[in-house]
């Protein structure tokens, strides 16, 4: 059963709240930002002339074991995906004026985001210990820049979520200003869809 969303609106030429339109235009520009980084990764994929490499391979009779740990990254991807579910449940809660639900789902989303970041920090550290750095080879440069910037976006998202959670705890978010939660949600879901693309193109397609 659908219910009418209660969001603070005001008259604009488009009928869309200016903040929401601005967020969508920002996300559209972010498409190009990540598109450039993903394109660069794909451009230099399999172009490294020395290791470490992302996957197992034999070059000139020398066997190199790959760095990617697909089961581990799959769990990270699943965690981020589920954080999108908790985020949208937070929005659904505040649209019903369920402030307790909002706090719970916002906290869950932030925790899942932090879990993803911890996984990424662990992965980066493991790769570094295996000899992969920003300037070790083309794989290192393109991989770290792409996933690092994504991680930076997730970090910003976690900060926004924690700020909203504190505001919710203080009773400053109601169904009247649920748009604040919706805007944070749009950003968070965007970060999630970017990871959907990265997970497939970078990790699974080899």
């Amino acid at each position, binding site marked *: 059963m659908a219910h009418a969303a209660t969001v603070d609106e005001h008259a604009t030429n488009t009928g869309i709240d200016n903040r929401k339109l601005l967020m969508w235009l920002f996300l559209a520009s972010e498409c190009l930002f990540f598109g450039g980084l993903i394109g660069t990764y794909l451009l230099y994929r399999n172009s490294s002339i020395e290791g470490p490499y992302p996957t197992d391979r034999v070059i000139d009779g020398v066997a190199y074991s790959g760095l990617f740990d697909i089961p581990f990254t799959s769990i990270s991807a699943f965690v981020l995906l589920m954080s999108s579910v908790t985020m949208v449940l937070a929005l659904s809660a505040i649209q019903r004026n369920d402030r307790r639900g909002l706090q719970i789902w916002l906290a869950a989303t932030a925790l899942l985001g932090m879990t993803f970041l911890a996984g990424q920090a662990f992965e980066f550290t493991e790769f570094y210990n295996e000899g992969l750095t920003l300037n070790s080879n083309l794989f290192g440069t393109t991989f770290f820049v792409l996933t690092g910037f994504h991680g930076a976006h997730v970090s910003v998202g976690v900060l926004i979520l924690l700020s909203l959670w504190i505001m919710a705890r203080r009773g400053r978010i109601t169904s009247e200003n649920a748009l604040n939660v919706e805007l944070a949600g749009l950003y968070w879901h965007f970060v999630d869809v970017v990871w959907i693309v990265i997970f*497939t193109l970078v990790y699974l397609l080899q």
Partner: protein
Amino acid sequence: MLELLTVVLAVDGKAFFENPAYLLGIPLIAVGALGALLALTPIELKWPQPAPPEEEYEILDHAPGDHPDAAEYVKVGLILAVITAVEVAVYYVDALEGALLAILLILSAAKFVLVALWFMHLRFDNRLLSIAFSGGMLLVAALFVIVLSTLGASLV
């Protein structure tokens, strides 16, 4: 965890400038700490409040239409989880190696579309928002086609 902490604390100057985890992580932690500090200070932070609606303006389309309820969001979440499981399973099936690229791209696109349409509410909101986002996606597609084709990159 302790091992990770030991590695982090044992960083030398050279490692700091080589390891992206430090290069990106430490500034982010600093920003995070600053953000947390600001969030916890008793400064009154107010979101900008929208102007009250004026009757002479007509709202062409209510931006947030009827959003789905929580149960529908959970259903979509379960579908996304299943698709992710299928993606990983397909990755390990040797017999599907020939079709791996097509299968993974289709599954990935399905997840992308589900999140954008349901969780980001593009299915329910003003179409102008879909147009704005599609514009960004089209520009990415143009970038990919031009750069990757002219410079010879390949997904296979």
